[in-house]
Protein backbone atom coordinates (compact mmCIF):
# COMPACT_ATOMS: atom_id res chain seq x y z
CA UNK A 1 0.00 0.00 0.00
CA UNK A 2 1.48 3.36 -1.04
CA UNK A 3 -0.27 5.06 1.90
CA UNK A 4 1.70 2.90 4.35
CA UNK A 5 4.96 3.67 2.57
CA UNK A 6 4.14 7.39 2.67
CA UNK A 7 3.49 7.34 6.40
CA UNK A 8 6.61 5.30 7.13
CA UNK A 9 8.73 7.97 5.38
CA UNK A 10 6.87 11.07 6.57
CA UNK A 11 5.59 9.96 9.98
CA UNK A 12 7.54 7.03 11.45
CA UNK A 13 11.01 8.23 10.43
CA UNK A 14 10.41 11.85 11.56
CA UNK A 15 9.16 10.61 14.94
CA UNK A 16 12.22 8.39 15.35
CA UNK A 17 14.38 11.39 14.43
CA UNK A 18 12.62 13.46 17.07
CA UNK A 19 13.67 10.93 19.73
CA UNK A 20 17.25 10.56 18.44
CA UNK A 21 17.80 14.33 18.18
CA UNK A 22 17.68 14.48 21.97
CA UNK A 23 20.49 11.90 22.17
CA UNK A 24 23.10 13.48 19.85
CA UNK A 25 24.71 16.91 19.57
CA UNK A 26 23.14 19.17 16.97
CA UNK A 27 24.34 22.55 15.85
CA UNK A 28 22.89 24.62 13.02
CA UNK A 29 20.63 21.80 11.91
CA UNK A 30 23.50 19.29 11.59
CA UNK A 31 24.41 16.32 13.74
CA UNK A 32 27.91 17.13 14.97
CA UNK A 33 28.58 14.29 17.43
CA UNK A 34 29.61 10.80 16.38
CA UNK A 35 28.28 9.04 19.48
CA UNK A 36 25.17 9.00 21.66
CA UNK A 37 24.94 11.27 24.66
CA UNK A 38 22.55 11.55 27.61
CA UNK A 39 23.86 15.00 28.42
CA UNK A 40 20.82 16.85 27.04
CA UNK A 41 18.38 14.72 29.01
CA UNK A 42 20.52 15.16 32.13
CA UNK A 43 20.52 18.94 31.69
CA UNK A 44 16.73 19.14 31.30
CA UNK A 45 15.90 16.61 34.03
CA UNK A 46 18.34 18.23 36.45
CA UNK A 47 16.86 21.70 36.15
CA UNK A 48 13.97 22.60 38.53
CA UNK A 49 12.89 25.29 36.03
CA UNK A 50 11.64 22.59 33.66
CA UNK A 51 9.77 20.78 36.44
CA UNK A 52 7.82 23.95 37.11
CA UNK A 53 6.85 24.28 33.45
CA UNK A 54 5.95 20.60 33.23
CA UNK A 55 3.78 20.89 36.33
CA UNK A 56 2.03 23.95 34.92
CA UNK A 57 1.42 22.08 31.65
CA UNK A 58 0.08 19.07 33.56
CA UNK A 59 -2.25 21.33 35.52
CA UNK A 60 -3.39 22.96 32.27
CA UNK A 61 -4.25 19.52 30.84
CA UNK A 62 -5.93 18.17 33.97
CA UNK A 63 -7.80 21.42 34.68
CA UNK A 64 -9.25 21.51 31.17
CA UNK A 65 -10.20 17.82 31.48
CA UNK A 66 -12.08 18.34 34.75
CA UNK A 67 -13.87 21.44 33.43
CA UNK A 68 -14.83 19.62 30.22
CA UNK A 69 -16.26 16.76 32.27
CA UNK A 70 -18.32 19.04 34.52
CA UNK A 71 -19.69 21.07 31.61
CA UNK A 72 -19.83 18.32 29.00
CA UNK A 73 -21.65 15.60 30.94
CA UNK A 74 -24.96 17.52 31.32
CA UNK A 75 -25.00 18.23 27.56
CA UNK A 76 -24.39 14.56 26.73
CA UNK A 77 -27.14 13.54 29.17
CA UNK A 78 -29.53 16.11 27.66
CA UNK A 79 -28.79 14.69 24.21
CA UNK A 80 -30.01 11.21 25.21
CA UNK A 81 -33.21 12.64 26.68
CA UNK A 82 -34.59 14.66 23.74
CA UNK A 83 -36.32 13.95 20.42
CA UNK A 84 -34.64 13.63 17.02
CA UNK A 85 -35.13 17.27 15.96
CA UNK A 86 -33.48 18.68 19.10
CA UNK A 87 -30.75 16.05 18.74
CA UNK A 88 -29.87 17.29 15.26
CA UNK A 89 -29.71 20.88 16.53
CA UNK A 90 -27.53 19.85 19.49
CA UNK A 91 -25.17 17.88 17.23
CA UNK A 92 -24.69 20.88 14.96
CA UNK A 93 -23.91 23.04 18.01
CA UNK A 94 -21.42 20.45 19.25
CA UNK A 95 -19.78 19.78 15.88
CA UNK A 96 -19.57 23.29 14.42
CA UNK A 97 -16.85 24.45 16.86
CA UNK A 98 -14.94 21.23 16.17
CA UNK A 99 -14.63 22.22 12.52
CA UNK A 100 -13.74 25.85 13.17
CA UNK A 101 -10.10 26.88 13.10
CA UNK A 102 -8.47 26.85 16.56
CA UNK A 103 -7.07 30.36 16.07
CA UNK A 104 -10.52 31.70 15.15
CA UNK A 105 -12.18 30.15 18.21
CA UNK A 106 -9.45 31.51 20.45
CA UNK A 107 -10.00 34.95 18.93
CA UNK A 108 -13.65 34.79 20.08
CA UNK A 109 -12.44 34.30 23.65
CA UNK A 110 -10.01 37.21 23.34
CA UNK A 111 -13.01 39.47 22.65
CA UNK A 112 -14.91 38.03 25.63
CA UNK A 113 -12.11 37.88 28.19
CA UNK A 114 -10.01 40.81 26.93
CA UNK A 115 -8.79 43.70 29.11
CA UNK A 116 -10.92 46.73 30.02
CA UNK A 117 -12.91 46.54 26.79
CA UNK A 118 -13.59 42.82 27.06
CA UNK A 119 -17.18 41.68 27.22
CA UNK A 120 -17.03 40.16 30.71
CA UNK A 121 -15.34 43.16 32.28
CA UNK A 122 -17.62 45.65 30.52
CA UNK A 123 -20.65 43.73 31.73
CA UNK A 124 -19.46 43.32 35.33
CA UNK A 125 -18.40 46.98 35.53
CA UNK A 126 -21.76 48.19 34.24
CA UNK A 127 -23.64 45.94 36.67
CA UNK A 128 -21.50 47.29 39.47
CA UNK A 129 -20.30 43.84 40.55
CA UNK A 130 -16.67 44.96 40.31
CA UNK A 131 -15.03 48.37 40.40
CA UNK A 132 -11.76 47.48 38.71
CA UNK A 133 -11.51 45.25 35.62
CA UNK A 134 -10.46 41.71 36.54
CA UNK A 135 -7.57 40.20 34.66
CA UNK A 136 -8.63 36.96 32.92
CA UNK A 137 -6.96 37.21 29.53
CA UNK A 138 -3.25 36.36 29.79
CA UNK A 139 -3.74 34.22 32.93
CA UNK A 140 -4.07 30.47 33.55
CA UNK A 141 -7.83 30.94 34.06
CA UNK A 142 -8.18 32.45 30.62
CA UNK A 143 -6.21 29.57 29.09
CA UNK A 144 -8.39 27.01 30.91
CA UNK A 145 -11.63 28.68 29.77
CA UNK A 146 -10.46 28.71 26.13
CA UNK A 147 -9.20 25.11 26.24
CA UNK A 148 -12.42 23.87 27.83
CA UNK A 149 -14.58 25.32 25.09
CA UNK A 150 -12.35 23.99 22.34
CA UNK A 151 -12.15 20.45 23.77
CA UNK A 152 -15.78 20.13 24.96
CA UNK A 153 -16.89 18.17 21.84
CA UNK A 154 -14.20 15.53 22.49
CA UNK A 155 -15.68 14.94 25.95
CA UNK A 156 -19.36 15.13 24.94
CA UNK A 157 -19.24 12.70 21.99
CA UNK A 158 -17.76 9.62 23.80
CA UNK A 159 -20.10 10.18 26.78
CA UNK A 160 -23.10 10.28 24.42
CA UNK A 161 -21.90 6.97 22.95
CA UNK A 162 -21.62 5.42 26.43
CA UNK A 163 -25.02 6.72 27.54
CA UNK A 164 -26.70 5.41 24.38
CA UNK A 165 -25.38 1.91 25.09
CA UNK A 166 -27.12 1.81 28.45
CA UNK A 167 -30.08 -0.51 28.85
CA UNK A 168 -33.15 1.62 29.65
CA UNK A 169 -34.71 -1.22 31.65
CA UNK A 170 -32.04 -0.70 34.33
CA UNK A 171 -33.34 2.83 34.89
CA UNK A 172 -36.90 1.50 35.08
CA UNK A 173 -35.82 -1.19 37.52
CA UNK A 174 -34.20 1.46 39.74
CA UNK A 175 -37.36 3.57 39.62
CA UNK A 176 -39.52 0.51 40.27
CA UNK A 177 -37.49 -0.24 43.38
CA UNK A 178 -38.30 3.23 44.69
CA UNK A 179 -35.22 5.19 43.64
CA UNK A 180 -35.73 8.87 42.91
CA UNK A 181 -34.51 10.23 39.59
CA UNK A 182 -31.48 11.80 41.30
CA UNK A 183 -30.61 8.47 42.95
CA UNK A 184 -30.91 6.65 39.62
CA UNK A 185 -28.71 9.31 38.01
CA UNK A 186 -25.88 9.00 40.54
CA UNK A 187 -26.08 5.25 41.24
CA UNK A 188 -26.93 3.87 37.77
CA UNK A 189 -26.50 6.36 34.92
CA UNK A 190 -23.17 7.94 35.90
CA UNK A 191 -21.34 4.74 37.02
CA UNK A 192 -22.39 2.91 33.84
CA UNK A 193 -21.09 5.74 31.67
CA UNK A 194 -17.61 5.64 33.23
CA UNK A 195 -15.97 4.07 30.14
CA UNK A 196 -17.19 7.03 28.04
CA UNK A 197 -16.01 9.47 30.68
CA UNK A 198 -12.54 7.92 30.63
CA UNK A 199 -12.31 7.86 26.82
CA UNK A 200 -13.36 11.51 26.68
CA UNK A 201 -11.01 12.48 29.50
CA UNK A 202 -8.06 10.75 27.82
CA UNK A 203 -8.74 12.59 24.55
CA UNK A 204 -9.25 15.97 26.19
CA UNK A 205 -6.19 15.56 28.38
CA UNK A 206 -3.81 14.71 25.54
CA UNK A 207 -5.08 17.49 23.25
CA UNK A 208 -4.99 20.11 26.03
CA UNK A 209 -1.65 18.96 27.39
CA UNK A 210 0.01 19.32 23.98
CA UNK A 211 -1.94 22.38 22.77
CA UNK A 212 0.04 25.32 21.47
CA UNK A 213 -2.40 27.89 20.03
CA UNK A 214 -4.54 28.45 23.14
CA UNK A 215 -1.76 29.02 25.72
CA UNK A 216 0.21 31.08 23.17
CA UNK A 217 -2.73 33.44 22.51
CA UNK A 218 -4.80 33.42 25.71
CA UNK A 219 -1.78 33.01 27.99
CA UNK A 220 0.16 35.86 26.42
CA UNK A 221 3.84 36.22 25.67
CA UNK A 222 5.24 35.34 29.08
CA UNK A 223 2.99 32.33 29.81
CA UNK A 224 5.26 29.29 29.46
CA UNK A 225 3.97 25.76 29.11
CA UNK A 226 5.92 22.96 27.44
CA UNK A 227 4.40 23.38 23.91
CA UNK A 228 4.99 27.16 23.81
CA UNK A 229 8.44 26.71 25.35
CA UNK A 230 9.37 24.09 22.73
CA UNK A 231 8.27 26.42 19.93
CA UNK A 232 10.47 29.18 21.30
CA UNK A 233 13.45 26.82 21.69
CA UNK A 234 13.15 25.44 18.16
CA UNK A 235 11.97 28.38 16.07
CA UNK A 236 13.46 31.41 17.78
CA UNK A 237 16.53 30.11 19.61
CA UNK A 238 17.41 27.16 17.34
CA UNK A 239 18.07 25.05 20.44
CA UNK A 240 17.15 21.83 18.70
CA UNK A 241 18.63 19.53 21.33
CA UNK A 242 16.49 21.10 24.03
CA UNK A 243 13.46 21.12 21.75
CA UNK A 244 13.88 17.43 20.88
CA UNK A 245 14.31 16.39 24.54
CA UNK A 246 11.26 18.39 25.65
CA UNK A 247 9.08 17.19 22.74
CA UNK A 248 10.08 13.56 23.46
CA UNK A 249 9.26 14.02 27.14
CA UNK A 250 5.95 15.69 26.24
CA UNK A 251 4.96 12.78 23.99
CA UNK A 252 6.28 10.22 26.47
CA UNK A 253 4.36 11.64 29.45
CA UNK A 254 1.21 12.00 27.31
CA UNK A 255 1.52 8.32 26.35
CA UNK A 256 1.95 7.27 29.99
CA UNK A 257 -1.20 9.21 30.92
CA UNK A 258 -3.08 7.60 28.00
CA UNK A 259 -1.94 4.17 29.16
CA UNK A 260 -3.17 4.92 32.68
CA UNK A 261 -6.57 6.05 31.36
CA UNK A 262 -6.81 2.95 29.15
CA UNK A 263 -5.87 0.58 31.95
CA UNK A 264 -8.43 2.11 34.29
CA UNK A 265 -11.10 2.03 31.62
CA UNK A 266 -10.35 -1.64 30.81
CA UNK A 267 -10.82 -2.50 34.49
CA UNK A 268 -14.03 -0.50 34.72
CA UNK A 269 -15.35 -2.06 31.54
CA UNK A 270 -14.96 -5.50 33.11
CA UNK A 271 -16.73 -4.23 36.20
CA UNK A 272 -19.68 -2.63 34.40
CA UNK A 273 -20.49 -5.82 32.47
Amino acid at each position, binding site marked *: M*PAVGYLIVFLAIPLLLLFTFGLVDIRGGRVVSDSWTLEHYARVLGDPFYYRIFLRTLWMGLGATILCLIFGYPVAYLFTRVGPAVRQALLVMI*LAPLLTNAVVRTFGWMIILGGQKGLINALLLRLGVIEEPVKILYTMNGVLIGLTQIQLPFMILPIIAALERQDGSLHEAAAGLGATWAQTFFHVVVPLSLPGILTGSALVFVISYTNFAVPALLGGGSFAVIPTFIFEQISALLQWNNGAVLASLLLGTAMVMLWLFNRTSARLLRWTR
Partner: protein
Amino acid sequence: MRRAPTPPGDMLLAAVLAVFCVVSLLALVFPSVLVVITSFNASDFLTFPPQGWSLRWYTAMAKNWEVRQAAWLSLKVAALVVAIDLLLGVPAAFPLTRARFRGRDFLGTFILSPLMLPGIVIGIGLLFFYMLLGLSLSFSLLVISHVVVTLPFIVSLTSARLTTLDPTYEEAALNLGASQVQKFIHIVLPQLWPGVAAGAAFAFLLSFDNFTVSLFTASDRLRPLPIVLFYLLRYDISPLVGAVSSLEIVLALLVLLVGSRLLGVTRIAQLGKRVT
Protein backbone atom coordinates in the same frame (compact mmCIF):
# COMPACT_ATOMS: atom_id res chain seq x y z
CA MET B 1 -54.76 9.82 40.18
CA ARG B 2 -52.58 12.24 42.11
CA ARG B 3 -48.97 12.50 41.10
CA ALA B 4 -46.44 12.12 43.84
CA PRO B 5 -44.62 15.40 44.60
CA THR B 6 -41.20 15.66 42.94
CA PRO B 7 -38.49 14.96 45.54
CA PRO B 8 -36.38 18.05 46.31
CA GLY B 9 -33.20 16.16 45.32
CA ASP B 10 -34.57 15.63 41.82
CA MET B 11 -35.45 19.29 41.45
CA LEU B 12 -32.03 20.38 42.63
CA LEU B 13 -30.27 17.99 40.22
CA ALA B 14 -32.46 19.11 37.32
CA ALA B 15 -31.69 22.75 38.09
CA VAL B 16 -27.93 22.14 38.31
CA LEU B 17 -27.84 20.09 35.09
CA ALA B 18 -29.91 22.72 33.28
CA VAL B 19 -27.60 25.54 34.35
CA PHE B 20 -24.48 23.65 33.23
CA CYS B 21 -26.16 22.73 29.91
CA VAL B 22 -27.05 26.35 29.20
CA VAL B 23 -23.55 27.57 30.09
CA SER B 24 -21.74 25.02 27.93
CA LEU B 25 -24.04 25.36 24.93
CA LEU B 26 -23.59 29.13 25.15
CA ALA B 27 -19.83 28.67 25.45
CA LEU B 28 -19.81 26.41 22.38
CA VAL B 29 -21.71 28.77 20.12
CA PHE B 30 -21.33 32.29 21.51
CA PRO B 31 -17.63 32.98 20.69
CA SER B 32 -18.18 32.26 16.98
CA VAL B 33 -21.34 34.39 16.88
CA LEU B 34 -19.44 37.17 18.62
CA VAL B 35 -16.63 37.00 16.07
CA VAL B 36 -19.10 37.40 13.22
CA ILE B 37 -20.94 40.31 14.91
CA THR B 38 -17.78 42.25 15.74
CA SER B 39 -16.47 41.81 12.20
CA PHE B 40 -19.06 44.42 11.14
CA ASN B 41 -17.71 46.85 13.75
CA ALA B 42 -17.15 50.43 12.55
CA SER B 43 -14.62 51.53 15.19
CA ASP B 44 -10.86 51.08 15.29
CA PHE B 45 -10.97 48.85 18.35
CA LEU B 46 -12.72 45.66 19.17
CA THR B 47 -15.60 46.66 21.35
CA PHE B 48 -18.78 44.86 22.13
CA PRO B 49 -21.47 45.82 21.44
CA PRO B 50 -20.05 47.48 18.31
CA GLN B 51 -20.39 51.25 18.07
CA GLY B 52 -21.77 51.55 14.56
CA TRP B 53 -21.77 49.13 11.67
CA SER B 54 -19.68 48.99 8.55
CA LEU B 55 -17.97 46.68 6.09
CA ARG B 56 -14.66 48.51 6.48
CA TRP B 57 -12.82 45.48 7.87
CA TYR B 58 -13.93 43.39 4.93
CA THR B 59 -12.59 45.98 2.50
CA ALA B 60 -9.42 46.20 4.62
CA MET B 61 -9.10 42.42 4.36
CA ALA B 62 -9.55 42.46 0.60
CA LYS B 63 -6.85 45.14 0.31
CA ASN B 64 -4.41 43.45 2.68
CA TRP B 65 -1.68 41.88 0.60
CA GLU B 66 -0.44 39.52 3.31
CA VAL B 67 -3.89 38.09 4.02
CA ARG B 68 -4.69 37.70 0.33
CA GLN B 69 -1.42 35.89 -0.33
CA ALA B 70 -1.96 33.63 2.67
CA ALA B 71 -5.53 32.75 1.69
CA TRP B 72 -4.45 31.92 -1.85
CA LEU B 73 -1.56 29.80 -0.54
CA SER B 74 -3.85 27.92 1.86
CA LEU B 75 -6.35 27.22 -0.95
CA LYS B 76 -3.63 25.88 -3.25
CA VAL B 77 -2.11 23.73 -0.51
CA ALA B 78 -5.50 22.32 0.54
CA ALA B 79 -6.49 21.48 -3.06
CA LEU B 80 -3.23 19.63 -3.72
CA VAL B 81 -3.39 17.88 -0.34
CA VAL B 82 -6.88 16.55 -1.11
CA ALA B 83 -5.73 15.26 -4.53
CA ILE B 84 -2.78 13.37 -2.98
CA ASP B 85 -4.96 12.13 -0.10
CA LEU B 86 -7.44 10.65 -2.57
CA LEU B 87 -4.74 8.93 -4.62
CA LEU B 88 -3.15 7.41 -1.51
CA GLY B 89 -6.17 6.95 0.74
CA VAL B 90 -8.90 5.44 -1.42
CA PRO B 91 -6.77 2.48 -2.63
CA ALA B 92 -5.61 1.86 0.96
CA ALA B 93 -9.21 1.53 2.18
CA PHE B 94 -9.80 -1.65 0.11
CA PRO B 95 -7.20 -4.01 1.63
CA LEU B 96 -7.89 -2.54 5.08
CA THR B 97 -11.58 -3.49 4.92
CA ARG B 98 -11.73 -6.45 2.52
CA ALA B 99 -8.45 -8.37 2.43
CA ARG B 100 -7.56 -10.80 5.19
CA PHE B 101 -3.91 -10.80 6.11
CA ARG B 102 -1.77 -10.83 9.20
CA GLY B 103 -1.12 -7.41 10.69
CA ARG B 104 -4.15 -5.79 9.04
CA ASP B 105 -5.35 -4.29 12.31
CA PHE B 106 -1.87 -3.00 13.04
CA LEU B 107 -1.66 -1.32 9.62
CA GLY B 108 -5.09 0.24 10.16
CA THR B 109 -4.02 1.66 13.51
CA PHE B 110 -0.77 2.93 11.95
CA ILE B 111 -2.61 4.75 9.14
CA LEU B 112 -5.03 6.35 11.63
CA SER B 113 -2.28 7.18 14.15
CA PRO B 114 -1.77 10.80 12.97
CA LEU B 115 -5.24 11.47 14.47
CA MET B 116 -4.00 10.43 17.92
CA LEU B 117 -0.54 12.00 17.86
CA PRO B 118 -0.08 15.62 19.02
CA GLY B 119 0.28 17.91 15.99
CA ILE B 120 3.22 19.69 17.61
CA VAL B 121 5.22 16.44 17.75
CA ILE B 122 4.44 15.59 14.09
CA GLY B 123 5.41 19.13 13.02
CA ILE B 124 8.74 19.10 14.86
CA GLY B 125 9.58 15.60 13.59
CA LEU B 126 8.95 16.68 10.00
CA LEU B 127 11.02 19.87 10.44
CA PHE B 128 13.95 17.81 11.79
CA PHE B 129 13.56 15.32 8.93
CA TYR B 130 13.64 18.02 6.23
CA MET B 131 16.60 19.77 7.83
CA LEU B 132 18.56 16.53 8.13
CA LEU B 133 18.01 15.92 4.41
CA GLY B 134 19.30 19.45 3.74
CA LEU B 135 15.96 20.63 2.31
CA SER B 136 14.74 24.16 2.92
CA LEU B 137 11.07 24.66 3.78
CA SER B 138 8.98 25.10 0.64
CA PHE B 139 5.51 24.87 -0.85
CA SER B 140 5.88 21.17 -1.68
CA LEU B 141 7.16 20.29 1.80
CA LEU B 142 4.13 22.06 3.30
CA VAL B 143 1.83 19.98 1.08
CA ILE B 144 3.68 16.76 2.03
CA SER B 145 3.36 17.63 5.73
CA HIS B 146 -0.38 18.33 5.52
CA VAL B 147 -0.98 15.01 3.75
CA VAL B 148 0.35 13.18 6.85
CA VAL B 149 -2.35 14.63 9.12
CA THR B 150 -5.29 14.58 6.66
CA LEU B 151 -4.80 11.15 5.03
CA PRO B 152 -6.49 9.27 7.94
CA PHE B 153 -9.79 11.06 7.20
CA ILE B 154 -10.03 9.82 3.63
CA VAL B 155 -9.02 6.30 4.69
CA SER B 156 -11.44 6.11 7.62
CA LEU B 157 -14.45 7.62 5.80
CA THR B 158 -13.88 5.52 2.67
CA SER B 159 -13.43 2.36 4.79
CA ALA B 160 -16.58 3.12 6.78
CA ARG B 161 -18.54 3.38 3.54
CA LEU B 162 -16.90 0.26 2.05
CA THR B 163 -17.97 -1.96 4.93
CA THR B 164 -21.62 -1.06 4.25
CA LEU B 165 -21.51 -2.14 0.56
CA ASP B 166 -23.19 -5.40 -0.39
CA PRO B 167 -20.63 -7.58 -2.26
CA THR B 168 -23.34 -9.49 -4.16
CA TYR B 169 -23.73 -6.57 -6.59
CA GLU B 170 -20.06 -6.84 -7.48
CA GLU B 171 -20.27 -10.62 -7.85
CA ALA B 172 -23.29 -10.19 -10.12
CA ALA B 173 -21.42 -7.69 -12.29
CA LEU B 174 -18.45 -10.06 -12.62
CA ASN B 175 -20.77 -12.99 -13.45
CA LEU B 176 -22.38 -10.90 -16.19
CA GLY B 177 -18.97 -10.45 -17.76
CA ALA B 178 -17.81 -7.08 -16.41
CA SER B 179 -14.05 -6.54 -16.09
CA GLN B 180 -12.49 -5.50 -12.77
CA VAL B 181 -12.17 -1.93 -14.07
CA GLN B 182 -15.79 -1.84 -15.27
CA LYS B 183 -16.91 -3.26 -11.94
CA PHE B 184 -15.04 -0.54 -10.07
CA ILE B 185 -16.36 2.32 -12.23
CA HIS B 186 -19.97 1.19 -12.57
CA ILE B 187 -20.65 -0.68 -9.34
CA VAL B 188 -18.21 0.28 -6.58
CA LEU B 189 -17.60 3.98 -7.24
CA PRO B 190 -21.27 5.10 -7.45
CA GLN B 191 -21.92 3.50 -4.05
CA LEU B 192 -18.65 4.64 -2.53
CA TRP B 193 -18.58 8.28 -3.52
CA PRO B 194 -20.49 9.85 -0.57
CA GLY B 195 -17.80 8.55 1.78
CA VAL B 196 -14.99 9.66 -0.49
CA ALA B 197 -16.52 13.11 -1.08
CA ALA B 198 -17.15 13.71 2.63
CA GLY B 199 -13.58 12.60 3.38
CA ALA B 200 -12.30 15.03 0.74
CA ALA B 201 -14.36 17.90 2.18
CA PHE B 202 -13.00 17.29 5.70
CA ALA B 203 -9.44 16.82 4.47
CA PHE B 204 -9.71 20.13 2.62
CA LEU B 205 -10.95 21.93 5.72
CA LEU B 206 -8.34 20.29 7.94
CA SER B 207 -5.52 21.36 5.65
CA PHE B 208 -6.97 24.86 5.19
CA ASP B 209 -7.31 25.24 8.98
CA ASN B 210 -4.16 23.44 10.00
CA PHE B 211 -2.13 25.46 12.43
CA THR B 212 0.27 23.35 14.49
CA VAL B 213 1.94 21.40 11.69
CA SER B 214 2.24 24.55 9.53
CA LEU B 215 3.83 26.35 12.48
CA PHE B 216 6.92 24.20 12.06
CA THR B 217 6.82 23.24 8.38
CA ALA B 218 5.90 26.55 6.70
CA SER B 219 8.72 28.97 5.95
CA ASP B 220 8.52 32.63 7.00
CA ARG B 221 8.04 33.68 3.39
CA LEU B 222 5.21 31.19 2.74
CA ARG B 223 2.73 31.61 5.57
CA PRO B 224 -0.67 29.94 5.30
CA LEU B 225 -3.75 31.78 6.56
CA PRO B 226 -3.96 30.35 10.13
CA ILE B 227 -0.31 31.30 10.76
CA VAL B 228 -0.88 34.86 9.50
CA LEU B 229 -3.98 35.09 11.74
CA PHE B 230 -1.94 33.87 14.70
CA TYR B 231 0.70 36.57 14.28
CA LEU B 232 -1.98 39.24 13.73
CA LEU B 233 -3.47 38.21 17.11
CA ARG B 234 -0.29 37.62 19.04
CA TYR B 235 1.18 41.07 18.79
CA ASP B 236 -1.84 43.29 18.38
CA ILE B 237 -5.49 42.30 18.31
CA SER B 238 -6.45 43.70 14.92
CA PRO B 239 -10.18 43.95 14.04
CA LEU B 240 -9.11 42.77 10.59
CA VAL B 241 -8.90 39.27 12.09
CA GLY B 242 -12.66 39.35 12.67
CA ALA B 243 -13.43 39.61 8.98
CA VAL B 244 -11.06 36.77 8.06
CA SER B 245 -12.36 34.64 10.94
CA SER B 246 -15.98 35.15 9.90
CA LEU B 247 -15.18 33.79 6.46
CA GLU B 248 -13.49 30.78 8.07
CA ILE B 249 -16.56 30.13 10.24
CA VAL B 250 -18.78 30.24 7.15
CA LEU B 251 -16.43 27.77 5.43
CA ALA B 252 -16.59 25.38 8.42
CA LEU B 253 -20.40 25.51 8.43
CA LEU B 254 -20.45 24.82 4.70
CA VAL B 255 -18.29 21.74 5.12
CA LEU B 256 -20.48 20.54 8.00
CA LEU B 257 -23.53 21.03 5.77
CA VAL B 258 -21.96 19.16 2.84
CA GLY B 259 -20.73 16.39 5.14
CA SER B 260 -24.09 15.91 6.83
CA ARG B 261 -25.88 15.86 3.46
CA LEU B 262 -23.51 13.12 2.30
CA LEU B 263 -23.30 11.00 5.43
CA GLY B 264 -25.78 12.26 8.01
CA VAL B 265 -24.80 14.23 11.12
CA THR B 266 -24.58 11.14 13.31
CA ARG B 267 -21.81 9.58 11.26
CA ILE B 268 -19.80 12.80 11.43
CA ALA B 269 -20.20 12.72 15.20
CA GLN B 270 -18.73 9.20 15.23
CA LEU B 271 -15.81 10.55 13.23
CA GLY B 272 -15.38 13.42 15.66
CA LYS B 273 -14.64 11.02 18.49
CA ARG B 274 -11.57 9.81 16.68
CA VAL B 275 -10.17 13.22 15.86
CA THR B 276 -7.54 14.73 18.08
